[in-house]
């Protein structure tokens, strides 16, 4: 059974078409890595799945929740889809624990004790149970990103989207975030990741999706795609990334 199903997704900014008909299916528990050159539309696609961008055509289906361009209220979709951003986007005036608790309180309307317990549990899951009262400014980039992951997880989304979540981190902080993602994958979380960490993608992902010019032009198991790219675009992209 597919958990996420995208059909014919189109999106333009002004006169520039950024997504030119994207189809994609993600099964429950699957980990999908999305790769492609900068500007190929990866972020726009992810943001559409979360309802942060309004699509011009096509249908997004997540766990039975259908969204088409006519849909006004995208909150039902957002409750099924968590998102972690490149820039963490923590709320600076709230402690780590409060960052996690806010939406539990005002969106899920959970009681005080339950909210606290759920936040503690979510922070423990990313290895930051001891940082409940720390403010974002007192945390390293890696820790901030892990709080952001905990904040999304606490809402119990069906699928978690991660858009280059290690790109803003100093190299020595990348691994602590990747190992959290790896653990989530092992626990059976459905993940769609935009990443430049090719080794990680190869090791952790079930499916690799290569975007080029607003379309998915190759997809399949990572090993097959990396070792035998069938389009010159992917061959060039793989060569470029591995040369780094």
């Amino acid at each position, binding site marked *: 059974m597919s958990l996420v199903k995208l059909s014919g997704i189109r999106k333009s900014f002004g006169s520039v078409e950024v997504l030119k008909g994207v189809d994609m299916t993600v099964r429950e528990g699957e980990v999908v890595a999305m790769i492609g050159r900068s500007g190929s539309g990866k972020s726009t696609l992810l943001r559409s799945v979360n309802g942060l961008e309004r699509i011009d055509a096509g249908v997004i289906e997540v766990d039975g929740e259908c969204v088409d361009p006519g849909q006004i209220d995208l909150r039902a979709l957002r409750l099924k889809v968590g*998102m972690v951003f490149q*820039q963490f986007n923590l*709320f*600076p005036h709230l402690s780590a624990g409060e960052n996690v608790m806010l*939406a539990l309180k005002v969106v899920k309307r959970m009681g005080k004790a339950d909210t606290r317990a759920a936040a503690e549990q979510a922070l423990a899951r990313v290895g930051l149970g001891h940082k409940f009262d720390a403010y974002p400014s007192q945390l390293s980039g890696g820790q901030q990103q892990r709080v*952001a992951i905990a904040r999304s997880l606490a809402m119990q989304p069906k699928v978690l989207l991660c858009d280059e979540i290690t790109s803003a981190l100093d190299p020595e902080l990348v691994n602590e975030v990747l190992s959290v993602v790896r653990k989530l994958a092992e626990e059976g979380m459905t993940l769609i990741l935009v990443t430049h960490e090719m080794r990680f993608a190869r090791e952790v992902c079930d499916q690799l999706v290569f975007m080029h010019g607003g379309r998915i032009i190759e997809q399949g198991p990572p090993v097959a795609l990396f070792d035998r790219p069938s389009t010159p675009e992917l061959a060039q992209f793989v060569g470029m990334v591995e040369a780094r």
Partner: protein
Amino acid sequence: MAYRFDFTSLWDYAPVLVHGVATTVGLTVAGTVLGVGIGIAGAAARNSASRPLRLAVGAYVELIRNTPFLVQLFFIFFGLPSLGIRMPEWAAAVLAMVVNLGAYSTEIIRAGIDATPKGQVEAGASLGMTGPQIFRYIILGPAMGKIWPALSSQIVIVMLGSSVCSQIAAEELSFAANFIQSRNFRPFEVYFAATALYLALAVLTRWILARLGDRLFLKGAARA
């Protein structure tokens, strides 16, 4: 003949001065609480999806910012009764201060809101929060923290500007000073005292607002 200062002549009128100070403080507190409340609502409205609402608030802000406070006050106290809307001096004074500070603080608070990183709003949206929830829990606090010094200055300006309300016989500090000097014929001493009292009130107001700002907004971001 040299002028002989005589501050003792003020002593008999101390209760009048105290009443004046108390009225000025009362007008300022009421004007500030309600005015900043309007400012927050106005800033939210200027941020809203409704174009008519944005335009209406924009018109209000421009109208108030481009006309003198004295005329606003006269309009409320002398103009509105023609429409059957009558109120006592103090109420007209409070209303004028609220309307005035409301417009300025709408602009000031909006600047703080505009400085909110878009990513934080998107993070809130991605967690399923509604627009009003995002405004209240994510945008407002840090925005107020950023503009608090500017807002504090505006509050002091409004406090000092309340002296204009003596023109409609609201019994605040300037009214008290005018009254006393018309009785004791000691304008230097009276206005010297009034000046010192305004200065003290302004310094005190700034100090209280700074403490209040620290308590309310000195979290997270400011500890960086």
